[in-house]
């Protein structure tokens, strides 16, 4: 007769073992990291440039450059280029962030050597065609027009605007007309300045072999772009003085909330503690915010909190889509939960639960080479090393309620929080 009364004994996760990548340097100095795996006959190649939106001098410049690069290299038409990649079952993604931008190639391993030369040519000899640029402009205009009808988009942009201001790329609001202010030469200059061999690194995950690095040297090993790294004045952030911004959208049946605070520059240790505190607050399904605002009150289908890490500061953000009739209630409850964390120590059983959950979450984050490569990419771009992961794993085990209470009291005070509501209040 089985005993269903007690859950099976749980074994704690002691350590997170992950394979370090093989590191190479191409002839032109590009650092190249290989994450080999024999599981699937596929290759994922990321080339990451320090070409994020914080480098732009005109709105949308970085995202447009990133997108337009994909169209074709000099010597091929956009149609031919698309046919070429499609024929080999290759997929190319652009990604644009605050600090970095790049291209990601997914290709069956057997076609890697066919696809790589054309892929490399995209940023070594970009065509940047006028027609496709104009199409991008009109598509962007439509996309922004559509996004401005979404409560979530307006709330998200509103909070960034509160925290960083109009003149900072992070905070600038984009209108449907902004894309028409761009000219093709703005894109050409951006690509020349930032998509260059001294300004990137490469990660390759999947079924790599002894020819992989040799192929990279052949097609990616020469200098390209502006080899003098362009200096760029960091934009200045201006935080707003208001506490509440209400973006009225009369047709909305839900309000989107974005509540956040700039916590300034934090040390690695502080950031790790804050990460664990964030999990308690709103970082998993059993969090304080979920338990109260979704599971107890039913105000929302989704609520959570997360840490947004920037190159010069860290922000805590809380987001939820709530029924329009309970908007004010939801905001009150969110701040109540934040205050509770500052007033009372987290009970031992809850802390244990979070520790186990976070350990499991970290283990899952390293499940497979594609995931491991993604974590490694973040380590590189934030200037960290594998020791950060070790520190994080150990701290998750060793942190106690007093530490977390101190962290909450230091960082989660009511002043400095901005609340942005898009919808109805």
């Amino acid at each position, binding site marked *: 007769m*089985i005993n*269903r009364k007690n*859950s099976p004994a749980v074994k704690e996760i002691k350590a997170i073992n992950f394979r370090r990548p093989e590191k190479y340097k191409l002839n032109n100095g590009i650092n190249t990291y290989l994450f080999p795996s024999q599981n699937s006959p596929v290759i994922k190649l990321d080339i990451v440039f320090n070409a994020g939106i914080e480098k732009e001098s005109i709105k949308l410049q970085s995202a447009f450059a990133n997108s337009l690069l994909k169209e074709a290299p000099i010597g091929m038409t956009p*149609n031919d280029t*698309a046919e070429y990649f*499609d024929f080999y079952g290759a997929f190319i993604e652009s990604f644009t962030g605050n600090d970095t931008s790049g291209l990601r190639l997914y290709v*069956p391993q057997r076609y890697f050597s066919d696809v790589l030369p054309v892929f490399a040519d995209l940023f070594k000899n970009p065509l940047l065609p006028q027609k496709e640029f104009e199409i991008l402009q009109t598509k962007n205009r439509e*996309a922004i027009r559509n996004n401005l009808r979404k409560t979530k988009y307006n709330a998200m942009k509103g909070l960034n605007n509160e925290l960083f201001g109009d003149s900072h790329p992070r905070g600038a609001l984009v209108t449907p007309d902004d894309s028409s202010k761009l000219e093709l030469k703005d894109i050409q200059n951006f690509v020349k300045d930032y998509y260059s061999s001294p300004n990137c690194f490469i990660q390759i995950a999947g079924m790599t072999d002894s020819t992989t690095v040799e192929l990279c040297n052949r097609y990616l090993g020469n200098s390209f772009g502006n080899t003098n790294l362009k200096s760029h004045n960091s934009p200045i952030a201006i935080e707003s003085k208001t506490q509440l911004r209400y973006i009225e959208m009369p047709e909305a049946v839900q309000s989107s909330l974005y509540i956040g605070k700039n916590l300034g520059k934090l040390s690695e240790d502080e950031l790790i503690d804050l990460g664990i505190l964030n999990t308690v607050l709103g970082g998993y399904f059993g969090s304080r915010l979920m338990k109260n605002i979704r599971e107890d009150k039913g105000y*929302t289908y989704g609520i959570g909190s997360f840490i947004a890490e920037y190159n010069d500061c860290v922000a805590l953000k809380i987001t939820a889509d709530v029924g329009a009739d309970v908007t004010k209630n939801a905001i009150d409850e969110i701040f109540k939960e934040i205050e509770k964390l500052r007033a009372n120590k987290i009970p031992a059983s809850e802390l244990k639960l979070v520790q186990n959950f976070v350990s499991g979450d970290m283990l899952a984050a390293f499940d*497979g080479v594609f995931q491991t490569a993604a974590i490694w990419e973040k380590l590189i771009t934030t200037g960290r090393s594998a020791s950060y992961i070790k520190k994080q794993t150990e701290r998750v085990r060793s942190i106690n309620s007093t530490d977390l209470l101190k962290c909450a009291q230091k960082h989660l005070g009511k002043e400095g929080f901005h609340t942005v509501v898009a919808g109805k209040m």
Partner: protein
Amino acid sequence: MINYDKFTLDNGLRVIVYKDKSTPMVAFNILYDVGARDENPERTGFAHLFEHLMFGGSKNIKNYDTVLQKAGGENNAFTNNDHTNYYITVPKQNIETAFYLESDRMLELAFSKKSLDVQRNVVSEEFRQRYFNQPYGDVSLYLRPLAYKVHPYQWSTIGKEISHITGASLKDVKEFFYKHYAPNNAVLVIAGDVETSAIERLCKKWFGNIPFRNVPQRDIPQEPVQPEKRTLSLDRDVPADAIYMAYHMCGRMDNDYFAADLISDLLSNGRSSFFNKNLIKEKNLFPEVDAYIQGSHDPGLFMINAKLYDTTSFETAESEIKNELNKIIIGDFAERDLEKVKNKSLSAQLFSKIGVLNIAMELAYYEWLSDASMINTVEEKILSVKKHDIMRVADEIFKESNLSCIYYKSKKAAQ
């Protein structure tokens, strides 16, 4: 080639085991053969509401999520018109926790009133968030009943309307559970660094004493052939006009399914696809236009959606799209185009099998469809489609009488 072991318990539970020593995580995926198509038309949205209730406590376990979090695991679930799928990923040393959790709620839910009250609200908010608070969000609530007059695919998984959800009672919930949640109505897949013999022991231990239940024989009325084109206009506060076209097509198990899938790829998969080249780039008609198939078990819909530029009329949009469809029917495309989309499809097959969770979900899905071994025959099915199959199937699907079309009109308010 995906190798796996398969066995069936005495109570009818089908179990599949996939071995992968390279990962520290185990995926535990359980699929129940119940979806929105099994619902009472007066009580729609139930399969999905029920998915939420499955997390509200079971006979011996007050809080499913807490137990799993303690074991370092994560979980989620989804419901569609055909089935409901629950999955867990957990560090392999804690795999027994997954057995404990899933077997207890297959045995008996807690049926708590508080849980029902809360989840009714949560699902109502989900309804609003997905369907009413997004521009173009409510289209499927109108397109389905336009295309389907008889078959239960006429309503979305979320339900016909919010009142069906808010009106659900505890009695309805209990009835639904005993009717559909049974070992003989489920497929369980475990994927990771495991041994089949150990898994078999754990299955017998935890699921062995759950009784076989009488799941009613499915008796779903077939949708009759649509006799003529159907249209509907909706005026909404959206920035641009949009057109939504749905053609009837075959079900997932039909021999022509893969041809239909490749047709949608020819039209809109990738930047060299016909819609992208001809309608977006060359003719500048749309910022976006997509063709895709729903992939439903019973005869489904071939969907074509487009957002229109201000300068594109509905008439032009429809006729230009149909022009592209006609090219497929008459074979106005190269063999190389077909070879290309097959390569894309095969490549997608490769990428869909990365990670034990993806493999577990696919194995469960194929076993539910008919047999898990289908996971290894998909490639040959894709490769065997010929150009004349594409033309014939296109001709069957893209008949005018087969079409249901929504003209989603932008209320040009002062902008």
